[in-house]
């Protein structure tokens, strides 16, 4: 009988508490196996609640942030009426969304139509479970972290294709096919960059990738390998933007051409699920960029003991979310400042520019390791 374990302080606390509480049970049903299973279930429940809180809680915050960033880029004020500077505007929007009618248009494949939002939401939750948020804060510290993330990311494409195909709308179908083609194309360069990270860090486990960057800022993977790290980071940024179907690569739902793209026919809560998945993907991609390039939960030490002592006093989770929000802010600024390319330009950019550059980057990285060790 294996003993389930979750390695974080909360998990240890639960494991310690369960046998103490079990003493109140009748002696006939007390056993170590039962204790470990109960502790495991309680730990799993805590993890589920924590990840749900991070994921679902971050979406309203991000939508509010996006509206404000967008408004200020365009010299507007954004939402101002509900609450202080419009802070509870998104909560009102969520409430409104709940009371909208949910129906499938005539001719839609009903089963697939309602299945699509379910599939879209699977991937971001699993990725979120793999990311180390702090030195001891990771839900599942698996050794095959990065290949798993790549595998799971494929679910998003499936959901989008299903949603677009099933709604019996030509705009939806076009949007779904476009975004399918776009997402699988950019997934290649996404995978290649992660391959580069795996090569220089020598591990596929996200925790050891993070811990490999311990030290000062110059030990982060983005700066540790001169020039190549920064190029890899920029390529990651571009391909993850396209992966998420975010502007400027949002040809899948380009309003002027395809109204809403794959979710044209969706309304009410199923539509909200597509929206939620998009914003959780923003968080998970930023978290991945933070983990792989920006030192994860490690503080940005500069090598001066006096300053570093203060930086080390701040808990890792705070640093992690500070970096994640910085990345999200970058994604938003890019979204609201760049114009959208055409479909053929987008595909050309991936297959004729990003992919060759990625291959060269891999070879250069290998050469760097061979020469400099």
């Amino acid at each position: 009988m294996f003993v389930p374990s979750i390695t974080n302080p909360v998990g240890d606390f639960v494991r310690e508490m369960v046998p103490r509480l079990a003493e109140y049970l009748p002696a006939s049903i007390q056993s170590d196996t039962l204790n470990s299973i109960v502790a495991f279930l309680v730990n799993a429940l805590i993890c589920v609640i924590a990840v749900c809180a991070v994921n679902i809680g971050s979406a309203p915050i991000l939508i509010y942030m996006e509206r404000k960033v967008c408004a200020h880029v365009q010299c507007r004020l954004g939402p101002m009426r509900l609450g202080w500077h419009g802070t509870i505007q998104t909560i009102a929007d969520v409430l409104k969304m709940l009371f909208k009618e949910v129906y499938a248009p005539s001719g839609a494949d009903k089963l697939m139509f309602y299945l699509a939002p379910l599939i879209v939401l699977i991937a971001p939750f699993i990725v979120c479970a793999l990311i180390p948020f702090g030195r001891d804060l990771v839900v599942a510290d698996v050794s095959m972290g990065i290949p798993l993330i790549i595998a799971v990311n494929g679910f998003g494409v499936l959901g989008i294709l299903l949603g677009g195909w099933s709604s019996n709308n030509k705009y939806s179908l076009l949007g779904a096919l476009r975004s399918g083609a776009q997402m699988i194309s950019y997934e290649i360069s996404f995978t290649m960059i992660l391959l580069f990270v795996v090569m220089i860090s020598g591990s596929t486990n996200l925790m050891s990738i993070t811990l490999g960057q311990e030290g000062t800022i110059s030990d982060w993977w983005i700066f540790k390998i001169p020039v190549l790290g920064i190029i890899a980071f920029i390529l990651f940024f571009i391909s993850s933007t396209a992966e998420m179907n975010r502007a400027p690569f949002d040809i899948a739902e380009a309003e002027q051409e395809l109204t809403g793209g794959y979710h044209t026919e969706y309304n009410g809560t199923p539509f909200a699920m597509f929206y939620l998945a998009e914003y959780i993907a923003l968080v998970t991609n930023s978290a991945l960029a933070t983990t792989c390039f920006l030192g994860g939960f490690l503080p940005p030490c500069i090598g001066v003991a006096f300053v570093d002592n203060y930086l080390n006093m701040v808990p890792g989770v705070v640093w992690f979310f500070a970096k994640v929000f910085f990345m999200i802010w970058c994604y938003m600024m890019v979204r609201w400042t760049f114009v959208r390319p055409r479909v053929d330009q987008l595909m050309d950019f991936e297959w004729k520019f990003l992919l060759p550059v990625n291959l060269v980057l891999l070879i250069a990285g290998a050469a760097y390791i061979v020469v400099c060790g």
Partner: protein
Amino acid sequence: MSEYIILSIFLFLGAFIAAAATVVGLLLGYRTKNTKNKMAPYECGMETIGNARIQFKVGYYLFALLFLVFDIEALFLFPVMMNFREIMAGHTALSPVIVIADLAIFMAILVSGLAYAWKKGILKWE
């Protein structure tokens, strides 16, 4: 092992949340009569002509095939890349020169494949 059990819980978590939200929407949602105009697909305001499941161009299919090749290639490279530093430092039984030669052959086949597709005009979007 226990990590993967947790992950299998998470596999259903997202789907469960979406399903719960859909049910809540169906229960709480405002309802109107299903008229023909309401149920019609949202296109141009004109009456929709035909079904949306039409024949579609093969270009997407070719990109999917290319994707398959490169994605699987990347997955094959993962085990080598993971131990690349170790191999180069000579900590393993493998000889660094042979590993590099193998990698070079592997990459050369791939790159020639990409060049072939490029020359054939598959990468050109029409």
